[in-house]
Structures are given as structure tokens and as C-alpha cells.
């Protein structure tokens, strides 16, 4: 086991720093033991995240592929992770999110038929959803933001939690979530807004 963590830090920061430290070990030393720890925690979450895309008949294939593709990207892109700008867990989540977007498009026939002749300029999820945001956020903000969300999320009423889970995990937009949950769009919108308010996340002025 790796002994890279500093033991004097408070527990919250230590947990968040664990993934940071491991990512840096991959980036600097191509450390396989560090990568194995990340793999063992995240790959099974990524597989389950793929299964959330319920309307896809190929969820089985997609799930293994998503876990593998995402982990390969984590290995190859570890050096682009900026530890002072983001939490490592969020960074890995964005890679899984972007890879899932691209895999869903790959498996969608419509998509293939539509752009086969424009290959060189085809947009990938990374073009639109950058996995690294430059100058607006830092790691301390990210850690305290995540910590607050973790503390408050258990207090959300179940109907609000269901709505934000559907939006953030199932790959469904507000209007698609409304269809799936058999709710009016307005109800989905207001439940999502109430949930974000309770989590003290920025909402509209």
C-alpha cells in the first residue's frame, strides 16, 4: 500500500487529498500501485454510472467499455490534472461524464448516419465540456463546496433527491426527466431549484 498521505490533516481534507495524491503519483512517476487504488474505487462506480442510461439497449457493453475507456484516459491524462484547481474526484467524474456522452453518440445510429462524411471536424464531448476549467475555481473552494453538499444532501426530501439524481446521473435533461418521472416539467424545475437552494448552490438571481 502507498504511504503518500500526510496524517496531520483533518479527515475531510485528507479524504479529498487521497485521490489528489494518487493522481499526482500517476502523473509524475507512472505509479501503477496508485493507479490500482484509483481503479478499484472508481471503475465499479463508472460501470454503475453507465447502467444509469436506461433507454440504451447496449448498457451491458457500454458499461464495461465506459469503465475501461475512462480509466485509460485517467492514466493518459493524469499530467493535465491541475491539483490546485479542482478536486480529483470531480476531475475523474468529468472524464467519465464526457466519455459516456461520446459512447452514447457512438452507439446511436442517428449520429453515425448524420456525420460520417465530416469526420475531421466532428465535435467530441471534450470540445464542449472541458475537463479542466482554467481560472475561476480553486481546490479549496471545490473541497469546501463538496463537503457542504455531502453534509446537506441527506437532508433533502426524497422527491427532490430523485429529481437531481435523475438529471445528474441518468443522462436526462429536465424535460426528459419529467417524462421519465411522469411529472410536469414545471414540477421537475421547481424541485431541482429547491434542491440546489438547500445545497446552497448558486441559483438564478
Amino acid at each position, binding site marked *: 500500500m502507498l504511504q503518500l498521505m500526510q496524517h496531520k490533516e483533518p479527515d475531510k481534507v485528507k479524504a479529498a487529498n487521497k485521490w489528489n495524491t494518487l493522481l499526482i503519483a500517476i502523473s509524475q512517476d507512472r505509479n501503477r500501485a496508485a493507479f490500482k487504488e484509483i481503479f478499484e474505487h472508481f471503475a465499479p*462506480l463508472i460501470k454503475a454510472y453507465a447502467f444509469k442510461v436506461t433507454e440504451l439497449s447496449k448498457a451491458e457493453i457500454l458499461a464495461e467499455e465506459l469503465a475501461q475507456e475512462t480509466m*485509460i484516459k485517467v*492514466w*493518459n491524462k493524469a499530467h493535465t490534472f491541475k491539483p490546485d484547481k479542482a478536486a480529483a474526484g470531480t476531475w475523474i467524474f468529468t472524464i467519465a461524464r464526457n466519455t459516456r456522452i461520446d459512447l452514447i453518440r457512438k452507439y446511436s445510429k442517428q449520429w453515425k448516419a448524420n456525420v460520417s462524411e465530416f469526420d475531421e471536424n466532428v*465535435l467530441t464531448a471534450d470540445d464542449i465540456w472541458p475537463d479542466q476549467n482554467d481560472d475561476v475555481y480553486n481546490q479549496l473552494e471545490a473541497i469546501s*463546496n463538496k463537503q457542504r453538499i455531502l453534509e446537506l444532501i441527506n437532508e433533502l426530501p426524497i422527491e427532490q433527491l430523485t429529481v437531481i439524481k435523475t438529471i445528474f446521473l441518468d443522462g436526462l*435533461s429536465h424535460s426528459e426527466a419529467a417524462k421519465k418521472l411522469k411529472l410536469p416539467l414545471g414540477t421537475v424545475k421547481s424541485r431541482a431549484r429547491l434542491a440546489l437552494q438547500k445545497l446552497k448552490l448558486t*441559483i438564478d438571481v
Partner: protein
Amino acid sequence: MTKYHPDTRFISDFAAGSLPLSQALCVSAHLHYCDDCKQKVEQLTDLGSVLFDKISPMNLEQDFSSLMQRIDSMPENNAQFNSEVITASTKSSPLPAALNKLTNNDLDSLNWQGIGKNFRYSELNTGDSIRETSLINIKAGGNVPRHLHKGDEITVVLKGSFSDQDDHYLAGDFIVRTSGEIHTPVASQDEDCLCLSTLEEPIQMTNWFYRLLMPLFKQSAQAL
């Protein structure tokens, strides 16, 4: 200063990665100009990451050693490790990164279609089969033919500015028009206005061109 921003719904769907590609392109174009919304996206991505961490994990069929075998057999592995991967749009580029890629960094060589002297558009292939996405160029002082919106439309101002009956819109502004609204945008006098626009196309077979002309035909028929 950017005045019109995507609402919470757009920002959440964007951060979750569930927004259709053409609409996500519009949000990402807005983020190029707006640090406030960028920060909101970051915070909501943190929320996504917290929810992600609470999923019940599923066992993989392939284990770590088979993944490493696959990685070791990839010839590009080391090359990829050494090359910088930068996809985030930077302030130094006048246009958002995704648009630079879609237009090959060369707006002049796009296939522009004109309507009248002052208005031209070029359709972009985003891979979204439901929505039509175009760059729109209005000559300084020129106007877009009066038109009726049949589906929801998002417009993001990229360069210059334009006005309609409601307000004046500057670079970065993210404007949503819903079905049934009529408006007549006019570019400011001093500069051409470049916009990104995506239009929801229900079942109709008409394209942007006919869509724009149809209300004009209706108007002349009714002698408006």
C-alpha cells in the same frame, strides 16, 4: 458585461452532460465570455461528482491487470502522455474553442447563404439531428427579416451587438426565444454582428431559409 445568462435549468443540464449537443455548444460559447456561469458549472459538477460517489458500485468483468495489459499494448501510450492536451477555451482566442474546430478556424471559407444584402448564415454540422445550428452574420446596421419563431431558439452573440424591440445584446449574451415570438433584430451601426443560433426543428421539413421567408410571405399576403 454579459447580461443574459443560461438559467439554472440549462446550467444544470450542461453540468450533468445531458443537454443536447447543439444547445450545449451554445452554453459553452456563453461560458467563453462569462466567468460567473463557469463557476456555477464547476459547483454543479461537484454536485454531480458527490452523487456519482454515492452510486452502488458494480463489479467489473475485467480486472486491473487486463486493463494494464491493454494500456501497455497501446503504441500511442507514451506519445499521448507527453503531448499537452488542452481543450478548454482560452481568453486569447476570440471565438470559443468548439466553434474554432467546427469552422476550421476560417469563417470566410464556410458555405454562407445570404438573404438580402445584410443577412447571411452558415449551417454547422454539430451531429445533432433534431436541431439546426448556424452561424449568423448581420451587417452593421442591417436587420434580420422579421420572423416568427416556430420552435425554441437559442442565440449567443459572439461578436458585435444587436438590438430588438426588447433590449440591446452584447458579446456573450445568451438569448432564448420561445415558439410564437416575433422579433426583428438589428445589428449595431458600427460593427457586423456574429451570432451562434440553434433552432429546435420539430417535424417540419422546412429549413432555416424557408422558415425565415414564410412569415414574410404571410405578411405580404395579409398586406401587413
